[in-house]
């Protein structure tokens, strides 16, 4: 009898341990946890919090993909990424407000500028070091982050600046669904994210430089032996990741406002998203991004009503992000859809 039970439970338990199984289980837990909240606060409020989270989800996804691209190529976490993105957002704002560049032109120029800076950083500060010796390179990325933050503060001041919205952002620019507001900004951010993912897919799967990038990510030594110039390929990865980071920063800056540390605060959530989805999985990190955003929105929305936890308020989300990173690293280090062992970080 016992043996039969074990047998019939086998496939289900095996599935439950796969990425999709864990994902389904997580969704189930979240949904069940939310039922009392929905009953108490009403469907409208719940829907509003879901809509609010979509914007963050898209921004986390874009930022997480920038992290994933560097990690895939080098198995390194690029701690400079957030501030490269921050600096790019300042460049965008500066071109727009001081020189009258249309916002989207300013975004693209800023992306290009930071792509060039990213590739220069790779060439001058990263490439001289042995890729297998992670500590010096990680320290260098920390250093670059600090330098960029100091320069941004020096050039543009430490105060908050209002960032122009890249989308129609009048209070009336919104759809109303079951009483909840879905803003055009949110839809625009989602569309940009979708286009970006499609663009990355084409770039990595349909171009020669994409093939080289995937080859280097898969097996550096063999990539060299088929004639791929690995240094230039990593440089391409840095340029791409820097540009994407800037795009993410420009999408979120309207809500957070500009200040030198605004992306450093946000990148924790992107890091949690990428860790959850799998640090070498672009698709996984997008899924992770939306889970983190939904849970964050629900916890900050409903969390204050949980007895004894009200004092955490908005810091709740930050704590949650760290707890999530810790739990994933402890129990499923490769993340939901990742393949690479995390020890190599």
């Amino acid at each position, binding site marked *: 009898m016992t043996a039969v039970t074990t047998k019939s439970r086998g496939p289900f338990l095996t599935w439950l341990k796969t990425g999709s199984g864990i994902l389904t289980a997580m969704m189930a837990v979240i949904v069940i946890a939310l039922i009392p909240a929905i009953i108490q606060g009403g469907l409208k409020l719940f829907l509003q919090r879901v809509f609010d989270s979509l914007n963050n989800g898209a921004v986390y996804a874009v930022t997480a993909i920038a992290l994933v691209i560097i990690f895939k190529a080098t198995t390194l976490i690029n701690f400079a990424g957030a501030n490269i993105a921050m600096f790019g957002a300042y460049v965008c704002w500066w071109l727009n407000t001081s020189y009258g560049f249309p916002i989207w032109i300013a975004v693209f120029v800023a992306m290009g500028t930071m792509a060039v800076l990213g590739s220069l950083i790779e060439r001058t500060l990263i490439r001289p070091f042995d890729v297998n010796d992670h500590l010096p390179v990680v320290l260098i990325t920390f250093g670059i982050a600090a330098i960029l933050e100091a320069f941004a503060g020096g050039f543009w001041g430490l105060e908050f600046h209002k960032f122009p919205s890249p989308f129609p952002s009048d209070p009336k620019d919104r759809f109303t669904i079951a009483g909840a507001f879905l803003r055009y900004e949110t839809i625009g951010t989602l569309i940009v994210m979708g286009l970006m993912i499609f663009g990355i897919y084409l770039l990595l799967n349909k171009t*020669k430089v994409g*093939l*080289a990038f*995937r*080859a280097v*990510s*898969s*097996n550096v*030594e*063999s*990539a*060299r*032996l*088929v*004639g*791929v*110039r690995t240094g230039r390929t990593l440089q391409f990865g840095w340029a791409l990741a820097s540009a994407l980071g800037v795009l993410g920063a420009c999408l979120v800056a309207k809500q957070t406002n500009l200040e030198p540390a605004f992306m450093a605060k946000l990148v924790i959530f992107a890091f949690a998203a990428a860790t959850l989805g799998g640090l070498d999985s672009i698709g996984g990190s997008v899924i992770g991004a939306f889970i983190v955003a939904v849970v964050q929105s629900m916890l900050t929305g409903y969390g204050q009503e949980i007895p004894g936890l009200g004092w955490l308020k908005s810091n709740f989300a930050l704590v949650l992000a760290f707890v999530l990173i810790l739990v994933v690293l402890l129990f499923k280090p490769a993340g939901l859809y990742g*393949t690479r062992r995390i020890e190599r970080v």
Partner: protein
Amino acid sequence: MSELMLKMAGVNARYGAIQVLRDVNLEVAKGEVVVVLGANGAGKTTTLRAICSMVATTGSIQIAGTEVVGKDTADIVRMQVAHVPQGRGTFPELSVTDNLMVGAYTRKDKEVQSDIDRWMDAFPRLRERRTQAAGSLSGGEQQMLAVARAMMCRPQLLLLDEPSLGLAPLIIEDLFRRFGEINRETGTTMLVVEQNANLALEIANRGYVLEAGEVVLQGSADDLRTNEAVREAYLGA
């Protein structure tokens, strides 16, 4: 001897403080199959890595008359040198087709697709599994993929590092028969590092024996097969 494809003269190679090759002199004529024999740690793999500039090297290495010591690996590959490293060196996350595409990375002509078809004809198992990730193939299939990928760059010089490692005897025999065919049909020059001396000497014209990083013996395949020391050390007779 006819025109030389590879000429190594006074080659030393080291990994940090450890010197692995000492004054190695080795020649491979165009169209020849040459085997390098030796025990573990004798420097066989390092010999191949030195040719591709994957290890710190001094001395002279000429490929088809061009000096390559100090050149970048990517530039040496562009001289149509293909290297199948030990343990196959496939790209595990990439599909079989993408592995072959990467093999043709340095080519700019329009015949890459027809070459993919050609090597899938030669190794039908690769066609069956063309959309699968290379990491999901069996050891024998991965070795076929590694060889097909190497041939995708239309090499004039093919370096094979212990192709028999970890494979079943029947598969190894088939593989070496293929090497012989490839050499006859395409005229590709081959330098093969191999522990399985019997099979290697069957398809080889000549051979070298390395010991502790030095060439201690060289000769025709027939001479090596009958050499008392070689028979004792590598042929199990």
